[in-house]
Structure formats: structure tokens, C-alpha cells
């Protein structure tokens, strides 16, 4: 009973497809890494370079999270946990940027 030959909520074809998608994501991540470095050499002003670098990094992070970490087809409870994570992390960044207005440093 305990010896499942595959994940209980996947059939074999779906699983094999998922692995092939992950290999595609791996190649995309390598390309995006090179793109990140090349784009950083173009002078867009500090704000411009920061925005582009963070945009590409967020894209790479989403690829890792959705496909490598399998979030794109995860159970609802995980999404509920991550909503809290996102809320508190966003709050952390927001409070940081708000504190900058204090001019205490």
C-alpha cells in the first residue's frame, strides 16, 4: 500500500511533462542570467538599472517558484500560507521605505 510508483496526484504522463517543463525552465534561467549581466552594462541611470535588474530577478524567481518549487499546481493550503508571507514581506519593505522619510540617518 505504501509503495506508490508515482506521486498520488499525478499520472505518469503529467509527471514526465512536468520534468520536461523544468528542463526548459532551467535553460530559460541560464539565458536570463546572461541577460541580467549584459543589461547591467547598459547605463540607464541608477533607478533604471535597479528597476531592470529587479524585474529580471523577479521573473527568474517566479520561474523557480512556480515550476521548480511546483507552486503553479500546489494545494490551496500552501497558497494560503504564502499569502501571509507575501503580506508580511511587503509590509517589511513598505515600513523600510516609510522609515526613510524620518531622516534620522
Amino acid at each position, binding site marked *: 500500500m*505504501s*509503495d*506508490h*510508483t*508515482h*506521486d*498520488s496526484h499525478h499520472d505518469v504522463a503529467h*509527471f514526465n511533462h512536468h*520534468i520536461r517543463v*523544468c*528542463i526548459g*525552465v*532551467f535553460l530559460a*534561467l*541560464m539565458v536570463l*542570467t*546572461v541577460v*541580467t*549581466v549584459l543589461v*547591467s552594462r547598459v547605463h540607464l541611470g*541608477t533607478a533604471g*538599472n*535597479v528597476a531592470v*535588474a*529587479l524585474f*529580471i*530577478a523577479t521573473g*527568474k*524567481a517566479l520561474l*523557480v*517558484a512556480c515550476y*521548480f*518549487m511546483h507552486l503553479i499546481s500546489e*494545494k*490551496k*493550503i*500552501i497558497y494560503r*500560507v*504564502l499569502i*501571509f*508571507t507575501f503580506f*508580511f*514581506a511587503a509590509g*517589511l*519593505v513598505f515600513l*523600510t*521605505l516609510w*522609515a*526613510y522619510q524620518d531622516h534620522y*540617518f
Partner: protein
Amino acid sequence: MDIPYTVTPRRDTGLYNSKIGIWLFLSSEVMLFGALFCSYILLRTSAPVTGPLVWPLGSDYLNIPIGTFNTAVLITSSITVILSWASLVRRDVKKFKFYMGVTVICGVMFLCIKSYEYHEKFIHYGILLNDQTTVKGHLEEIVVKEKDGTEKKYSSWNGALQIVNGVVTQSTFHNDQIADRELSYVLIHKDPPIGKHHAVAKEGHAEATKIYGNQIARVSNFGPWYHPFFAIYFTLTALHALHVFGGMMVNFYLMTAGIGMFKTDPQHLTNRVEVSGLFWHFVDLVWIFLFPVLYLL
């Protein structure tokens, strides 16, 4: 006593317990690294726009090709950890050990490269002159006058020296305390201009420049104490490296001592590899942000 729901999913969550556990743990890790990234934001935005404490470009101090290669190493290790999990799902223990082995080797490579980068920082020095300009390069020697007039030479100083009017007012970290000694001079192999190949060896390439003690305000190697940029660089990357090391240990255990579970309860082992893989992807994710922020911006 059996730990429940290591394989069978709980009816209310639809998942085996360690998957929820690892996601909760990763959520807390997001707050940990998030807080440090916020520290980076505050340090950077509050840095003065002129003078020696101006925020540097990452490329001024960090080696981008090495950092890019390290990024590629971690991304590769992420796909191999997935392939190792897939091998276990397909009950192929040989392939599992192969791919997990590659993952562990990638982790070791990452840590070795990071250690090399750290070493490069510790043997590299910046001399702040009284006119607020900085001379950077590799140290030949620091020559200090003892109280009895004899000269003492140091070929390295792991720490910082504060100097006022040619006299050391503060010395940190190195074993000898040389405060109140007179700094005679410093011999340094200056860095070549940016774009030229970096001369590493003391004995060989660039000739040493002599800078007299009364021109110097500070001598320091590029440790965390050198500049707030280095403080946050070392904090972020060292904490990340600790995570790489921990994840590597777990992965190594799963392919060696922990492999026995393949015979007794293969699905349980598969689930263990899956959640360890989730941690490993998180470590890769943090680096995906660390690399551009520290090296490229």
C-alpha cells in the same frame, strides 16, 4: 512510534505534513533575508554622495564573471535536485544517487568559489589618504616605528588602522596592538586601472608604491569593517553560504546514510527529497536576488 502523515496526505490539507512544514519554514526564511535586504536598502540610500563613504558600484569591488559562474552553478544544482527527486518517483535509485551527487558537488563548488572570493577580499587593501582619495591594491608591507625607534614590518594586517598625524590611533583585529605607534610608511602594489587584468601576486608584477604615514588617514583590508557595503555584502553572502552548507549536508545525508529508506519506505524517502529540494530551491532563489543586487548594481 510512527510519525503520522509522512506519506499519506492529511484529509484536511491534502498534503503530507513535511510539505506544509517546509513551506512554513521557508516563509520565515523570507522574513529573515527580507529584513537583511531592507537593511541593504537603508544603508545604500542613506550613504553620502561624495567622500570615501559613497556607495560603490558592485563591479568596483566584486568579480562579476565569478559571481555569474556561481549563479550558473546554483541554477544547475536546482535542476539536478529535481531530476534526483524524479528518479526516486520513478524508483530508480542509481539515477537518484547520481543526480543528488551532482547537486552536492555543485554546492561544494559554490562554497569553494565563495571562499576564494572572500580570500581575495581579505588580501586586498584600501588606503585612505588625508585628501580623502583612496589607493587600492595588494599590500607589500606596513612599517611601524616601535617606541624604542626600531622598525617593525607587517606583511599583512587583517583589520583596520586609524592614523592621525602619522600616529596610529586605533588598530583592530590583528594580534598586535599598535596604537600610539608611529606609522613610517606603507608599501602597496597599486591596482591597475579598471579594465586591465588584475595583478594578484605581490612578488612579480606591479612595483610597490611607498606612501608615508603622515599622508594616511586609514589602512584597511576589504573586510566587513571597510565600508557598509562590505558589511552587508559579507552578512548577506555568509548567511546565504551557511544555508547552502546546511542544505548540502541534508542532501548528502539523503544519498548516503539515509538511502536505506529506499528499501523500507520509498515514498517516504521521495517526500524527504522533495522537501529538501524545496529548501534548496529557496537557497537558489535568494542567490538570484543577491547576485544582481550586490554584484551588478
